[in-house]
């Protein structure tokens, strides 16, 4: 309950922020943080709670972005376009889920990675032209609606994961992660639960891709399928604390802000730092920042 209250306060704070500052760079930073939260939280549902390392997350992000962009630029109302993007991403997820979940552990990871690369290369070949918001729409482009859409999306993704993991289904999902055979023996259908986690995860990231398509003025269609999106999701989840609700939020804040600070000095340097940090987390601190925070607090409580 305490964390629910904290969450509401945080959302309220972010919602009020545009009334105090109209600076575009602050709003941009906000949108990036929100997209990062949604991206990582959606990955976390499948990767953290269901224990399935999906290295093809970019495929679903890309599909959401692609469909939303085409429909929205074509004149379809934004929310319909976003919904369509999410539906396509989810449909694709469920479609490949059956065969993909026949693969275990590392094979699932590299299988999804291969899938995302196939999509990326194919989209790059079919749509080599850069995609830009039409000039008419560009004239009325404003960051504020993007900011609120991002905030809503981040809130929804955290809320969805929070509700799911406390539900019966969510417990089943986590049981499958811990021990698939034991879960099956207790009447928890492993495939069904993994598919459900995948469907929710892809729906959320499809929406995130759609929000990106609505936010970003011009990019190559191939770009939204880039493995970098998967890498971001994995890095943020793990550094924040994989398999926890706060982890991706904390990780996203840390990741985006540090990236901004470092970008002023050297481009791409942030990846070096996050790469090292990521390795350290995997080796020595499997709970990420959330665990570090918990340990620090216990230490303080004990010593006082």
């Amino acid at each position: 309950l305490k964390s629910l209250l904290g969450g509401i306060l945080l959302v309220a704070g972010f919602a009020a922020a545009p009334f105090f500052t109209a600076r575009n760079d602050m709003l941009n930073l906000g949108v990036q943080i929100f997209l990062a939260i949604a991206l990582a939280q959606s990955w976390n549902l499948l990767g953290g709670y269901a224990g399935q390392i999906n290295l093809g997350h970019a495929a679903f992000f890309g599909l959401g972005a692609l469909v939303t962009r085409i429909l929205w630029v074509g004149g379809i109302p934004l929310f319909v376009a976003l919904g369509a993007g999410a539906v396509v991403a989810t449909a694709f997820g469920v479609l490949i889920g059956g065969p993909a979940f026949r693969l275990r552990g590392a094979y699932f990871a590299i299988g999804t990675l291969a899938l995302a690369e196939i999509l990326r290369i194919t989209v790059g070949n079919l749509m080599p032209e850069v995609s830009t918001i039409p000039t008419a729409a560009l004239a009325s482009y404003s960051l504020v609606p993007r900011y609120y859409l991002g905030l809503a999306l981040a809130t929804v993704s955290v809320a969805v994961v929070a509700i799911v993991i406390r539900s019966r289904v969510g417990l089943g999902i986590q049981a499958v992660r811990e021990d698939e055979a034991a879960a099956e023996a207790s009447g928890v259908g492993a495939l069904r639960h993994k598919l459900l986690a995948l469907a929710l995860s892809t729906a959320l990231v499809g929406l995130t891709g759609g929000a990106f398509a609505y936010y970003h003025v011009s990019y190559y269609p191939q770009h939204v399928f880039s493995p970098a999106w998967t890498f971001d999701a994995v890095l943020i989840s793990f550094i924040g604390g994989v398999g926890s609700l706060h982890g991706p939020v904390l990780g996203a804040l840390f990741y985006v802000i540090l990236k901004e600070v470092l970008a002023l000095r050297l481009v791409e340097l942030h990846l070096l730092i996050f790469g090292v940090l990521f390795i350290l987390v995997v080796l020595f601190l499997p709970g990420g920042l959330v665990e570090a925070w918990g340990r620090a607090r216990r230490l303080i409580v004990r010593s006082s």
Partner: protein
Amino acid sequence: VILTQQLILGLLVGGLYGLAAAGLSLTFGVLRILNVSHGELLMLGGYGAFWLFTLWRVDPFLALLGIGPAMFFLGLLLYWALFQFVVRAHEELRIKNSLLIGFGLTLVLHTLAIHLWTADERAVTTAYAGAAIRVGTLAIPLVRLTSLVLAFAILIALQLFLAKARWGRAIRATAEDWEAAALMGIPVGKTYLLAFALGTALAGIAGGLVSVSYSISPSIGLEWTLKALIVVVLAGLGSLFGCFAGGILLGLAEATSVVFLGGPYREVIGLVLFLIILVVRPQGLFGGRG
């Protein structure tokens, strides 16, 4: 004629795919870890050959004699610093963690390479780079042919080492069943170390050959990791000649797709093949056990 020419080129590049895959297969088969930074290690080897040639005019084929041991040493270092922590875990966690560590290492090496050497594409261009054997209208680039032969020779040497040498047999025993190997008095930790370092050296040598016949840049890592993975899956685990055959098969498949589907889909065919085999026949085309 175009098809034949493409098939020849495919055959030639296939040897390198096989060599790249052999290193990955070795670490995967013996340590039961999946090192997804294999392509980045290959990239490092490529830069080694490139700089040795650019700065000191060292012949790239000769440079392999230096790159091999240097990468072997780097492998020792990486195992000692990172992967020795991973192999302590039980099977499933081991593979998952190695995947994640490799992924982190990928980011680090990739970013480091961009900083040190810029993102430009580089290639070693020797005086004899253009030489080719001509058969009618077909051309067989000499450098690539040499690479293929070298790759094959290295795999034979490795196979001999694994079959005959004391440490080679220790590696095979550990791959078969590490607990039984440990009970027989084989120092499993050292065997792991050796196998990982050998895998790294193989990646480095493959990279050196890539820089001579093709080109390298900091971002080739993922592509080569995927190629090596495709070949390992094609070949099945634990078979070096399977790797070589799988590599050539992939090269030929790519070449065929270039002719019939066009160049842009060259990368797709291998990945599609990969997915089909993963789902239909997880033990690989040449592998026996699952």
